[in-house]
């Protein structure tokens, strides 16, 4: 049964149809999770004992930073699968992740900067965590530029996959930077091995926003993948038929 499912999903026509049916559900789930997360984060959660209300930036900053790493891993992983097994859908998912990944990286940097100004006393500091996250943004932008520069879609997919895989080295550097180097950025809160050092009333909105961002990523990557499929298959009968029926 699973084999059958993957075989069908590998067909662009089937993928286009199923993803189209999935989109409204993902959109609704995202909005629900985001509204709940915002309500708990901005209204219900109490202010922090040290940072007052400014810590509420965390509810967009931290999930955005998590997504910037998660999406990169998905992008590089899908790129590797596309490279080795020549699965077209993996190539499509890989390149469709780049823009949204870059967006979350940008958000993590910008919201972190806005949070850093009142709390740390500076918009920016060249510490290892901030610098490695900035390098991640450059990696995403490099991958997007490389993809746009090559006309043949399959060649472009291969080239970007290789660049993405090389860049994976940056992911553990970002994660462990706060432990390996003396950074201004504080250590991990939620992913510590012992109990998370965050009160439950603040952890709930954080996890809700993280869920919302995951759903949002699924939504956007499918929307982009559908465009990519249309472009790649533009000379096939089913795409022409679909376009002319609208």
């Amino acid at each position: 049964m699973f084999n059958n499912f993957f075989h069908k999903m590998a067909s662009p026509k089937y993928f286009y149809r199923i993803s189209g049916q999935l989109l409204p559900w993902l959109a609704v789930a995202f909005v629900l999770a985001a509204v709940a997360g915002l309500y708990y984060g901005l209204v219900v959660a109490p202010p922090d004992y040290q940072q007052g209300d400014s810590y509420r930036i965390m509810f967009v900053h931290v999930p955005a930073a998590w997504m910037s790493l998660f999406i990169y891993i998905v992008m590089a992983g899908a790129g590797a699968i596309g490279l080795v097994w020549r699965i077209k859908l993996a190539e499509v998912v890989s390149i469709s992740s780049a823009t949204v990944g870059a967006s979350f990286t940008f958000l993590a940097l910008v919201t972190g900067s806005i949070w850093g100004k009142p709390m740390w006393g500076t918009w920016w500091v060249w510490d290892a965590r901030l610098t490695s996250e900035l390098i991640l943004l450059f990696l995403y932008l490099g991958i997007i530029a490389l993809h746009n520069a090559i006309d043949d879609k399959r060649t472009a997919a291969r080239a970007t996959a290789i660049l993405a895989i090389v860049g994976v080295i940056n992911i553990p550097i970002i994660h462990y930077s706060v432990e390996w180097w003396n950074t201004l950025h504080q250590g991990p809160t939620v992913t510590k091995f012992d109990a998370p050092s965050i009160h439950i009333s603040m952890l709930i909105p954080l996890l809700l926003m993280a869920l919302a961002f995951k759903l949002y990523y699924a939504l956007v990557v499918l929307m982009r993948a559908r465009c990519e499929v249309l472009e790649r298959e533009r000379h096939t009968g089913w795409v022409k038929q679909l376009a002319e029926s609208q």
Partner: protein
Amino acid sequence: MNLNEFLNMGGYAFYVWTSYGITLLVLLANVIGPARLRRKLLVDIARAARRARKAA
């Protein structure tokens, strides 16, 4: 809690609302972009198909 207090964010209104505002804008742009691209692609493909048929 009243609305003014909520909007004031304990004096951090500028920082908190700027962060959430930028996030909202970026998330919206990432949805609007591919939605418009898909419509444009479908129009382009349909036009190309009609032209090809006329030429044939």
